């Protein structure tokens, strides 16, 4: 095959172009650390990359949502702790009234104390976080426990005005966990009624202490204990929920790590491989430059 000068420069140009464009790709890969920069780099990786990136962001959102749920649960727990504490103090006061041989004015002081504790419990039941009532179910802007007049005699009774819906969060895709306690769960009413038993009980206790009616007081103590154990069960459930959320957060962190690893396989460059290829291509280009310099050194014109 006859070799002409145009051929030589053609071949050199073509080779150098090819080497340069390959080098360009490798440089981008090495500089960005990624082998996948646009869909055409690896069309079959497009869908996995989109899907895994979405799963990673989902997982981050779950973690964030669960973090918020955890805060909510903790806030609720401290309010429940208050409620339990209040009821405990009512109990102590009542026992004091039962055991002690107290005169009328002492009993009055104790009765007033129970009245105050009842108000304290009401405040706790109407606790708000971020301007929202936490024990009102979905009706977060409605005060859940309010005093209303009842019957003809103008008796005041506490009524529950919230609803029966507990707030839920997704802890894993598709699995919901209740993270709030509704007022009706916290202070249940007798069947069909709207007025929570506990406030009735406290009102009765107050009246009985005032009247020194020890026998009846003993009977009401039983209801008080029931309420307290009810709250304790709720707190226990909530503790379980908190653990569940905590575990879920850890699981999601683990899952996120795994997903990052999988995603990396699709889009990150194997730096060692990239560098060695880069060096290879640079050597090839250097050789091409060298050859082209040598070509121009030899010319028949120098010999004629």
């Amino acid at each position: 095959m006859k070799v002409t000068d145009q051929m030589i420069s053609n071949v050199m140009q073509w080779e150098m172009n090819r080497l340069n464009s390959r080098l360009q790709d490798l440089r981008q890969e090495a500089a960005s650390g990624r082998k996948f920069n646009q869909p055409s780099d690896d069309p079959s990786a497009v869908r996995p990359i989109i899907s895994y990136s979405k799963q990673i962001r989902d997982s981050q959102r779950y973690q964030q949502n669960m973090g918020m749920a955890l805060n909510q649960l903790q806030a609720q727990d401290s309010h429940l702790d208050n409620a339990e504490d209040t009821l405990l103090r009512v109990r102590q006061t009542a026992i004091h009234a039962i055991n002690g041989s107290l005169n009328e004015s002492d009993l009055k002081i104790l009765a007033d104390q129970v009245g105050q504790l009842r108000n304290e419990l009401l405040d706790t039941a109407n606790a708000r976080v971020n301007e929202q009532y936490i024990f009102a179910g979905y009706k977060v802007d409605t005060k859940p426990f309010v005093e209303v007049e009842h019957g003809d005699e103008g008796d005041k009774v506490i009524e529950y005005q919230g609803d029966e819906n507990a707030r839920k969060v997704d802890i894993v895709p598709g699995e919901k966990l209740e993270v709030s306690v509704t007022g009706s769960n916290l202070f249940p009413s007798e069947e069909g009624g709207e007025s929570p038993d506990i406030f009735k009980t406290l009102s009765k206790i107050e009246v009985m202490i005032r009247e020194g009616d020890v026998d009846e007081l003993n009977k009401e103590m039983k209801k008080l204990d029931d309420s307290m154990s009810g709250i304790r069960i709720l707190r226990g459930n909530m503790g379980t929920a908190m653990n569940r959320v905590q575990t879920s957060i850890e699981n999601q962190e683990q899952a996120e790590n795994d997903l990052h690893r999988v995603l990396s396989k699709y889009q990150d460059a194997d730096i060692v491989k990239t560098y060695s290829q880069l060096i290879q291509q640079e050597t090839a280009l250097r050789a091409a430059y060298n050859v082209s310099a040598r070509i121009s050194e030899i010319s028949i014109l120098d010999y004629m």
Partner: protein
Amino acid sequence: MSGLFAALNIARSGMDANSKSMSVVGNNIANLNTPGYSRQAAEARSLPSLESGGLMFGQGVSIERISRAQDVFVHDRLLDAEEEMGRYSAMSAPLQELEQVFGVETGDNLAGHIEEFFVSWDNLATNPGGEVERAQVIQMGHNLVSSFDSVFRNLDMLDGNISQSLSFEVGQVNAMLKEVAELNTRIARSKSPGGEAHSAMDRRDLLLRELSGKLGTGTYKGENDMVSVVLPGGRILVQGEGAHQLKEKEGSLYLVSGQSESEIGSNDLGGAFGGLLEVRDGIIHQVRDEVLALRNALRDEVNEQHKNGYYLDGEDVKSGENFFTYDPEKPYDEMKVALSNPSEVAAAGNTEAAPGDNENALKMYALSGKKIEIKIGEEEKLEGSFTLLDYYGKISAHVGMEVNQNKMRLESSGDNLNQLINRRESRVGVSLQESMLELTMYQRGFQAAARHMSSVDEMLQTLMGVGR
């Protein structure tokens, strides 16, 4: 007629032939770097011998003709290679632009806005009564709509750019077709012996290659060395001394012959034109259908779910309305966000629509992971079940594959073309070494003939001296 005078004549013919050859070689060297130039050679032939005294004496040399190196086989293969190269290199730019529209990186692309829209519902779920969260849902809806609009705008723009470059190329192609016809004329007229139109043929070969690259045209030889140029579908563009013209109207191509115009379909075209039409009418068209299918599926699912929710209008509880509007008569027209008031966002799943009710917002967010039946085109062909983002991924992968395939084909057709160009160079190109050696050879030939002449001259003088 032998003798010294005859010898003088022989010497003269030698000097003449060598100097003619010199100028042919000189012309070759001058055209060393001219694209499309074919090497020429002076064809020397010894003149017929004459009988004298029973002996046959040669009469010297003459240059019969100047020939042009040719390789029909390589030329035909070159036309094919130019066609492929023209096609894939024309497709490469619009495809790469198309790829930019369907990036995979999260952020300012369609996938990002789809996700942000659903995430805004998840944020709303954490505070379903929040004015800010509700306004955010509407805002993200607007962003999503404008993101779809911008994809369609980009596709339209690509479409328009392709039509524009077609109309630009048509002018060039027409000029080339005309020139081929003119060259045909010149070549046919110069058919008289010795008057070959070599440079016209070089020029015509080059034009035929370019035409093949642009239109995928084939050629065949007619009489008097004229060539005809035909489209891949068989329609004639140049025949003999006449050339038809192409015309671009509203993105379509027409062949104008006399008074009549006939449309040329993409099947009748190869090369750059064929490639551009393939991108515009094939790939971009399909991608647009796919994006529409995605948008319509998203719109219907969101509207459906939104209607299952409830919101508070002052004191009254209302069911959600369509979140996105469109004209049901023209489902392919623009889509808009229907809600303007944040309170109309139906976050609640229960008929009381209590402010803490986030059930519908959660279901709305869940749509982002739901598999939806995607139907494509006006005839609503079922594509299969995809999540919205996965379907976006399918579109993006489809575009990526086209770009990737184009890159590989472009490289291999470039390789092929380059090899053929080298083959052609090797067969018909000018080699400097060869030409320099020829130059020396003819120089020496001329010098020898001149020496011969002066020897004969000396002999003549000697002869004349004898008679004195």
